[in-house]
Each structure stands twice: as C-alpha cells, then as structure tokens.
C-alpha cells in the first residue's frame, strides 16, 4: 500500500474516531428535540458519561460495567432535564445550561478526588473487534469492520433510528409530539411520557458518547475533556435538519475537520495549529449561517407543553 493510501486510511480512521462522540450526542439530541425539548445540556451529559465511565473503569477494571454505568447515569441526568423542562416547565435553555454548569463543576471536582495526579497510566480501554473477512478489505475494511463495539453500535443505530422515526408508529408519535403536542394529546398520546422517554434517551446516548471518548479514544479523563463537542453536536443536528443520517454525516464532517488539525504537518503547510483547532467550530458556525431559514426545527421545539390551560 502506498504512502498516500496509508495516510488516507489513517485519516479516515481518525475522522471516524473523532466523530463518534459527536454522533452519539447528536443522535441523543435528535430524540430529545424531535419530541420538542431543546437539549443544550448535551455537553454536560457527554462530560458526565466521560467521567462516570472513567471513574467506574478505574475502580472496577471492567469496561462493560463502565459503559453500563455511563448509560445509567446519563439516563438519570436526562431524567433531571426532563423533570425540569417537562414537569416543572423551566425554560429549556436554562435547564440545559444549568446541567452543563453543574456537570462541569461536579466532574472537575470529583475527578480531582478520584484521579489524583499520581495516576498517570492510561485507563483500561475498549479494544477493537475485527470482523473476519470483511476487515481485510483495503481501506474500508479496517475502517468499518475493525472497530470497537461502540462504533458497531453506532453504525447499527443510524439505520435503526431512521427506520424507527419514519416507518413505525412510535416514530410517528414522536414526530407528532414535537410538531403539535396538543394534537397528539387529543389523539390519545401522553405527551409527557413521550418527552420524558426521549429526553432520558438523549441523556443515555450523549453519555455513551462521553464513554467512547474516554474508553476508546483518549483513555483518560481530564477537566473539560468534552471541549464543546456537545455544542458541535447541536450544530450538526441543525445542519442535518434533524434527520438521523444527515446529522451523523454532519458529525463526520466535523470529526474530519478536527482530524485534519492533527495531521496538517503531513501537508507541510505553515498553518498554526490554533487555527486548525478553531476549524471545527468555524465550520459549524458557517454551516449554521448557510442553513439559516432552510432548516426548520420541529414546530414545538422549546415550547413547554401545558396540559390543562384556560384559554380565553
């Protein structure tokens, strides 16, 4: 294999790796927002998942327990967001922000307690599982078929979620709740239940993204390891018009941009690395600008649903 093919393969692998946390978070955001609940707290949920999985694997040595723990805690944070937004009807932006701030503060503090600087060795991580035969295919093989279980899960989730959303009555119900909740309610749907479920699911998925970040990618935890990935995931969601496939593709785009930063030396261009670090955010920004007006969110997004109201 020539140098450039190896480079390409390596670059694609890195892009995929970097986009996986984004994709999990974005898919989580998809569920929440499709049901009409804004989820700015994806960043906090991602961070929480990262910390919980890191701490769990540190104490138990088992990655699978760590993933489970991340899922559970992520679901709980989602439950909190759901409780605040759906039951208490706190402004959804405020709730998300509060979760981010709390998660940032708590994980920063707790991580100091759990991992004091003495521990410098990497955490137990998740290893790749090669699918026999398929993983031998040049370039594509190692990319798609020599990955860890979480990536396989993601690759399965995308078509699954797409099918669920558009071809099942569950998906129909979800979409109806996000567009016109009162219509769904009068048709016999429990808007509250659907929203609670969606938001909890978003917590689980975002948390899973954080778990991937720690267990597969960097294999350690530090303060603010999420570095805004939760927000880029939101931009990807808007960019992808709240559709599972285009959203994940947008995540891949952003991941590829970040991967570029680490490999730019290969092109011997004299671009300072800070601009490359900036690049994903800049692209996300321009993506949002370019799409203004053309990407319509679910109609009831951000509007708290009031069950009983005395209309004039």
């Amino acid at each position, binding site marked *: 294999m020539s140098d450039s093919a190896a480079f390409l393969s390596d670059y694609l692998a890195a892009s995929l790796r970097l986009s996986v946390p984004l994709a999990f978070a974005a898919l989580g955001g998809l569920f929440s927002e499709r049901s009409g609940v804004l989820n700015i707290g994806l960043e906090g949920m991602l961070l929480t998942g990262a910390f919980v999985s890191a701490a769990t694997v540190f104490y138990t040595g088992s990655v699978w327990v760590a993933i489970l723990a991340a899922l559970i805690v992520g679901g709980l944070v989602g439950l909190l967001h759901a409780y605040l937004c759906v039951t208490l009807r706190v402004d959804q932006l405020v709730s998300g922000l509060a979760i981010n701030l709390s998660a940032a503060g708590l994980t920063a503090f707790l991580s100091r307690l759990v991992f004091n600087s003495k521990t410098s060795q990497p955490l137990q991580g998740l290893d790749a599982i090669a699918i026999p035969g398929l993983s031998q295919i040049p370039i594509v093989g190692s990319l798609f078929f020599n990955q860890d279980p979480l990536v396989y899960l993601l690759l399965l989730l995308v078509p699954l979620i797409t099918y669920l959303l558009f071809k*099942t009555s569950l998906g129909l*119900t979800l979409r109806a709740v996000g567009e016109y909740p009162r*219509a769904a309610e009068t048709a*016999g749907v429990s808007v509250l239940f659907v929203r609670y479920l969606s938001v909890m699911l978003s917590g689980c998925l975002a948390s899973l993204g954080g778990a991937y970040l720690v267990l597969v990618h960097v294999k350690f935890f530090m303060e603010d390891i999420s570095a805004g990935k939760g927000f880029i995931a939101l931009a990807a969601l808007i960019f992808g018009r709240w559709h599972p496939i285009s959203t994940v593709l947008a995540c891949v785009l952003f991941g590829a941009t970040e991967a570029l930063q680490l490999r730019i030396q290969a092109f011997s261009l004299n671009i300072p690395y800070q601009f490359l670090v900036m690049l994903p955010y800049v692209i996300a920004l321009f993506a949002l600008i370019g799409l203004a007006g053309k990407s319509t969110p679910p109609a009831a997004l951000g509007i708290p649903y009031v069950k009983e109201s*005395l209309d004039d």
Partner: protein
Amino acid sequence: MRDGETAYLRLEGITKRFGNFVANDSINLKVNAGSIHGLLGENGAGKTTLMNILCGLYQPEAGQIYLHDRAVQITSPKVAIAQGIGMIHQHFMLVPQLTVTENIILGSPLTLRLNLKQKSREILVMSERYGLSIDPLAKVGDLPVGTQQRVEILKALYRQAKVLILDEPTAVLTPPEVQGFFKVLRQLAAANHTILFISHKLDEILSLCDHITVLRRGRVVGTMIAHNSTRQDLARLMVGRDVLFHLEKAAQSSDHIVLEVQNLQVRDDRHLNAVQNVSFTLKAGEILGVAGVDGNGQRELADAIAGLRPATAGELILNGQIITRWTMQQRIKRLKIGYIPEDRQKMGLILRFSIARNLILKGFQQLPFCRNGWLQRGAIAHHATQAIQSFDIRATSGKLRVSQLSGGNQQKVVLARELSGDPTLIVAMQPTRGLDVGATEYVQQALLTERQRGAAILYISTELEEIMMMSDRIAVLYEGRFVAILDAATATVEQLGLLMAGSPAGRLSP
C-alpha cells in the same frame, strides 16, 4: 323527534373550576342517539370547557357522565376515544407537517410497521362512504381549511366514534360551504351517530339542530326544542337580557376622503400575493367593513396600511399624502393611525407589563411620556388613571399587570391606547373576537363614537352579522381582491355569502 328513548349521552351535575373561577356549574345535559343537539352560548360561557371534559382533556370536580346509561370516567383522551367520543376542535388538532393518513392513524394502537399504503387505501374508502372526499397522501398543512376539517371528522370516524362533538365548526367555512357541511352532519345523524354542535351562531343552531341547550356563565339556562324556538328567545337566554340586533347609527355626512388605496399589492410570509390590486377610498366618519373568510388577505391588508408590511405595488394616500414608502416608525410618529390587532394578547399587549406601560407602547419616545430623553413617570401614571376612567377599565390602578385583566378589559386597554389621541384612521382587525356580549357592545360603541367624531374606520371581521351592523359600506375580500363594495343598508346575507365564497354574482367588474 323520538321522545321516550333513553339518552345516549347524559351529563349530570358536571362542575369544573379553575382556581376560583367556575367554568361549568352543575351542568345537566341529555342527548339522544341519532340526533343533533346544539350547545349555544357566548364566548366564555363554558362550552369549550364542557367539551374538553367530554373528550378527556379536563377532569370535572363533580358530576357524572353516562353513555347509554352506563357511568363512565373519562380520564384521558385515550379513554374518551375508547368510549367512542370523537371531538372536532375549533382549532384543528392536525399536525400540518404530516400527511392526512398519518394524522388519522396517529394515536391508534402502536404497531411496528406503519403500513401507510394499506391504511391510505382504507381511509380513502372510508372517506367516500361518508361523502368527505380527501387525498390520503396530501400533507395536511397544504390543504385548504375546509378540507382539513373533513380530515378532522374522518379522524374521529376512524376511531369508531359514536358521539361527535363539533366545536364552532363553521367559523372557517363560507356560507355555501356551511350548507354542504350541514348535509354531511344530517347524514351522520341518520346513521345513528350522536352529534353535539357547539356554536354561538343562533341561526345555524336553529336551522341544524333538533334540541338546543343554552349555557350562560357556566350554567344551563334553558333546554328547548329547536323548531319551537325563536332567535329572540335564544338570544335572551344566551345573554340574559334582550339583545339589540341593530345598532343606532347616525347617517354619515362627510365627503372628505381620508384614505385612498390604489392598486395595492401585498405579499404574505410565503412570498405569495395575498392582496392583489385592491383599490378603495375611505371617507371621514365612515366605516368600511371588510368581510371575508379568514385567510383571504385580511391580515396582509391591515398590516400594509399600518406599515408592518411593505406594499409590493400600489399606493397608499392618507389625507392627500402618499405614505406608501413610509416606515412604521414614521407612520406612528407623524400620522394618527389606530391599529387594533386581531390577537390582543400576542400582538397588542405585553402581558407582563402594567396597564400604564402598555398604554405608552407606541408613544414612549415622544411627549408627553418622554421629555429630553427621560421617561416622565408622572405623566405616564396620570395618563393611565385617565384611560382607566374614560374607557371603563375594571382595574384598581394603572400599575396592575395586564395579564390579570379579563379579555374584555384587555381589549379596552388596547382601545385606550389606539383611540386616545383622536386618530384619523382606525384599522380594526376582529376587534370583538373572544369577547363576551358586554365587552363586544363596548367595543362596537367605542368605534361608533369614533365614527361620529369623524375618524375613518376599516373594520375587518369574519363575523358577517357584525359587519352588516357596523358598516356604512361593505367590501368583500376574496383571494386578495375586493370582489365587491356594497352599500351596507341594501346588502343581504345571501349576497355577501356568495361573494365571500367566490361566486361571480354581484361582483365588481374587473
């Protein structure tokens, strides 16, 4: 009439409270199967609350509902549907982004495979059976309102509804469409469905229903057989006193043209022409009523005159001045145009502001409320006190938040703001919408007083009766054009109805 039959639907002592406010007070109701029962009452009488109880959205504090003499607890919409109660809401419960089929099957038992094709076929068959033709694959948001209503009805029928509750269904229909709609309802009744028809329109209830129950202030004040009742009887029950069906209006005298509109063209939010080639003149002391079914360009017309929307063609001339290109700020500053928007809570008021602060919404940058760049609190408070008095606003002080006022009083605040200052031109969009009779009369009287004073008034409303009562001339707006401008004294309901529906009879020559 089939007397002696057990009522299919029976309500006993239904009571519903919201805080201290009693929306339904010990309501008793009996409806026979296969009959059309009218529920009459003005806005705020408690009709919608009662219906929401029947369809499971609200829970009553007291009372019992019986279906076929069996007591039922309708604890949620799901239960209501299971009991065979189908509600056709005033504001359709249809998701615009989904197709007809998707909307109809929404909420039915969860299946893993949607099988839209098969369901669409079933729905098509059903629609033909009931004479409610629709295209199952069309997106609901793209459908005209009358068709959407058919979807709403089909939704209920798809769930095997035996009881159909219709909440103000004719608000969105033209008079000819209403007749067709009534035919469908009679067919459904003949097929042994039970129909509850809620409305505040006396004539419709009289012509359609077998029995009528009148609600007032949350209580049942009368139940009668339709063909034994008169308009007067019903109106008196509805309001509690004799109602004037005609207002005293002095003849209009001035010849001075205040507003001249020439070939006006305005685009709506979707960049389509909502107003096309509209021309008319408006004299001082004259009320020009604009009749038409909602959605024919009324909002765009009003917005263009007020300055909220630019005109893409044509001219607006106020007292001889061409103001077409003037921005809204310019119009507010230099002209005296009063604008009463159609949704007082969304467009006319800031609910969390006090009465006083709402009153200065347009004038906060000018004298007397602002001097040398500083807000004049004394002047603002004083103005509020005066307005409360002159406009009979039931509030103890100008500091009270507008959100705590009733609908009628809120509208009075809007009036106080728009009418004080003696405007030359007043644009009123559905000014009595959602108001009870007392408040409605107040608003109408206030506008008539302005007319007396010499203001030119553009009165836009979907309530034909009201327009006929208030206007000197009536223009009919259909698909963005004035298809006729008639003298109010001689225009008939039939004539106007036909014009509103687009029929060429009596049209203006192009």
